[in-house]
């Protein structure tokens, strides 16, 4: 198909007679941008790894956090599986749009680009639902842990023998018990008979009352406590990283949807048909696939491991 894109002249070839790598300048720069952006995400995931290692004792298991599904169904990981599938499918429709562009098939490009935009909007919408489910604390603030609807319902909200066996918290509680056994005026820390409550000197730590606060207030107003605490509130860094990493990714998805929408409109207006090639579709496609690529890693490191 020599002479297919008829307007190509020397200036398109980076000013020389030969284009480095046989690639247009724009596509090359899109790749360079993606490499740098990938390093940003790598940095975030590495930082996540450091924090996770630091707080490994209390870091939650994702199946216990990500179990929400519309309609109040308890389905661990199902919602995020659905989101992943949507993003993969929209990536497929994007690559089909690129393929149609290589055949100069305007109708095909418009059809597949439109589906890609739809998939992108569904993903962003799903993430909005996921976030709102996480943030909805009873007092309306954005705390991601202590008064959080999602996290309150799992073992971090209340300490019972049954639930603490489920988490890493036994380590802390054991430490706490041992510490108090050695103290001058040992408090007796036990489980209640039915195993549902943590007892300090025979008094149950009240339901939905964090042990740390309980001990804090029970020190006759001095407000200090001695030694390890049976606090199982979990690290705030968990929520912070969750919102930052998925938010940064969501921002990429959102900008990708907008860019795809612009390209879709341009394709409908016949801009690329007149230009003789659909490389803009390919370039935005690179960005869109990158968004999918990042999600593959976020999904593994945040939701699976």
């Amino acid at each position, binding site marked *: 198909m020599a002479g297919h894109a008829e307007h190509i002249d020397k200036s398109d070839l980076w000013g020389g007679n*030969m*284009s480095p790598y046989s690639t247009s300048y724009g596509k090359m720069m899109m*790749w360079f941008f993606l490499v740098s952006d990938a390093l940003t995400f790598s940095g975030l995931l590495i930082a996540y790894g450091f924090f996770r290692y630091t707080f490994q004792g209390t870091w939650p*298991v994702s199946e216990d956090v990500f179990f929400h599904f519309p309609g109040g169904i308890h389905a661990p*990981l199902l919602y995020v*599986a659905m989101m992943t599938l949507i993003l*993969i499918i929209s990536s497929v429709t994007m690559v089909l749009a690129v393929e149609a562009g290589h055949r100069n098939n305007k109708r095909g490009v418009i059809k597949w680009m439109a589906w890609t935009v739809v998939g992108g909007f569904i993903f962003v919408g799903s993430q909005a639902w996921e976030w709102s489910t996480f943030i909805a604390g009873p007092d309306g603030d954005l705390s991601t842990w202590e008064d959080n609807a999602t996290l309150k319902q799992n073992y971090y909200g209340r300490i019972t023998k049954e639930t603490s066996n489920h988490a890493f918290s036994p380590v802390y509680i054991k430490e706490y018990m041992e510490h108090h056994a050695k103290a001058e005026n040992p408090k007796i820390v036990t489980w209640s008979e039915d195993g549902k409550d943590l007892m300090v000197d025979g008094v149950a730590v009240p339901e939905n009352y964090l042990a740390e606060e309980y001990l804090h207030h029970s020190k006759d107003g001095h407000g200090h406590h001695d030694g390890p605490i049976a606090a199982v509130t979990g690290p705030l860094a968990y929520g912070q990283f969750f919102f930052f990493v998925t938010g940064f990714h969501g921002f990429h998805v959102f900008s990708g949807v907008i860019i795809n929408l612009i390209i879709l409109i341009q394709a409908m207006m016949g801009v690329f048909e007149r230009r003789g090639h659909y490389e803009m579709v390919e370039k935005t496609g*690179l960005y869109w696939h990158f968004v999918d690529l990042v999600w593959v890693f976020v999904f593994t490191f945040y939701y699976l*491991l």
Partner: protein
Amino acid sequence: MERDDLIVNDSYSLNAHHSEEEGVKIRKKIYLVTVILCIITAIEIGIGMAGVNRLSASPSTWMGIKWFYVILTLIKAGYIVLVFMHLGDERKNLRWTILAPYIFFIIYLIFIIFMESTYIKDTITSFIGG
């Protein structure tokens, strides 16, 4: 204007083009990769939904599953980059210009996370609190 450049084999990216028959073949490949990606995701989700996690599994089992997840993720990433992003169809020099620096940096970061995690842990604990 007729082409007057030195590009051989019609390989300049602005001129990337294929016929209907080639398109059929390419689409077939795309659908195959789609199926592979969906199957891999289903396996990963299946393990998670079956309740296998770092608390329920024994440490050695969990170590195996962790590496299994990482390998599946890398396979997925490979398919996305090489097929969907067409890096596999680019020239070899472009491919390595993109991949080599990135792989180099990632190896460096992984080295850091293995070597310095305990030190970073101490630092975080001192400045933010454990």
